[in-house]
């Protein structure tokens, strides 16, 4: 069973066109407060968690099929080289094949110790960032945008590794801003570090 969760503080109607286009028969949920990111300590989209029949995590949060090839795109034309597109697609197919293999045979499920070792740790700063973000979303939803933005900026300051906190705040400020010039500056500032750490399959 696939459960797709939209981390979408603008709400269901904003996510609806993508959901309708997907024509899915699985759950498509709306997470305006980014609850899932709080519960599972997520930092970006798409991330996935594999959960077995007993409700146990068998693969902790990891990048779900996306790659860093976008970082090489031509920003004027917003296109990637054919080779980059091919590699990107191959990585996505490989990840989805791994998901299917797990469903059919159990392959790729990690033993408990390995699953535990790969869990990202929640620090006091991350916990505080979540609280500021939660408050920021509420303030924005209740007509207090300037105050909400201050809370969200504090959230990103406390948890700079979270792309979701920063990009959601940028999107609430203005649709499109989450992939605008400030986003690219932040991506460039990563240097050698990955934007989408590849899953260790």
């Amino acid at each position, binding site marked *: 069973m696939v459960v797709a969760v939209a981390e979408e503080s603008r709400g269901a109607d904003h996510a609806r066109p993508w959901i309708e286009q997907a024509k899915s028969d699985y759950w498509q949920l709306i997470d305006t407060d980014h609850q899932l990111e709080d519960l599972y300590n997520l930092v970006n989209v798409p991330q*996935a968690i594999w*959960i077995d029949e007993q409700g146990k995590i068998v693969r902790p949060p990891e990048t779900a099929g996306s790659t860093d090839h976008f970082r090489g795109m031509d920003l004027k034309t917003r296109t990637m080289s054919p080779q980059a597109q091919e590699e990107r697609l191959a990585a996505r197919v490989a990840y989805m094949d791994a998901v299917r293999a797990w469903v059919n045979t159990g392959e790729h499920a990690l033993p408990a110790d390995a699953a535990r070792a790969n869990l990202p740790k929640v620090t006091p700063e991350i916990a505080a960032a979540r609280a500021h973000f939660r408050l920021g979303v509420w303030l924005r939803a209740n007509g207090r945008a300037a105050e909400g933005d201050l809370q969200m900026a504090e959230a990103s300051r406390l948890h700079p590794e979270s792309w979701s906190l920063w990009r959601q705040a940028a999107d609430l400020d203005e649709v499109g801003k989450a992939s605008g010039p400030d986003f690219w500056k932040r991506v460039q500032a990563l240097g050698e570090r990955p934007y989408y750490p590849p899953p260790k399959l």
Partner: protein
Amino acid sequence: MTKILTPLAEFDVAARDGLWMSPVDATKVTGWTLKPEGMCRDDLCVPLPASAVGINEVDLAAFWTKLGGPVVSSATRDVWALGAPPEERNAALEGLEAPDFTLPDVDGTPRRLSDLRGKKVFLATWASW
């Protein structure tokens, strides 16, 4: 009234000077109950300093901070957010039991992860941004 946001819910309570409130409201917001030995949940009690307990009131911010959870507020202190204590989150994840949640689908129908027990679940996030 003071608005208090917790990770999964929100409450309106009568509070003064920050988050001083009745023990009944403190229980409503946190699930912890004020007893002579401190704030208690099941068999566990967290002792509170005398400065955090008054006559029929308790300083919820002091308790939550003692628990290790973040307490933040709007500039005008009318809206507060209590975050999950990081150790609680880490312990839950290290137990490897998938944290349960209920979220609405796109038409508003609530869906609970644990209702899918017995099936493998590929839980994935996405966003329009």
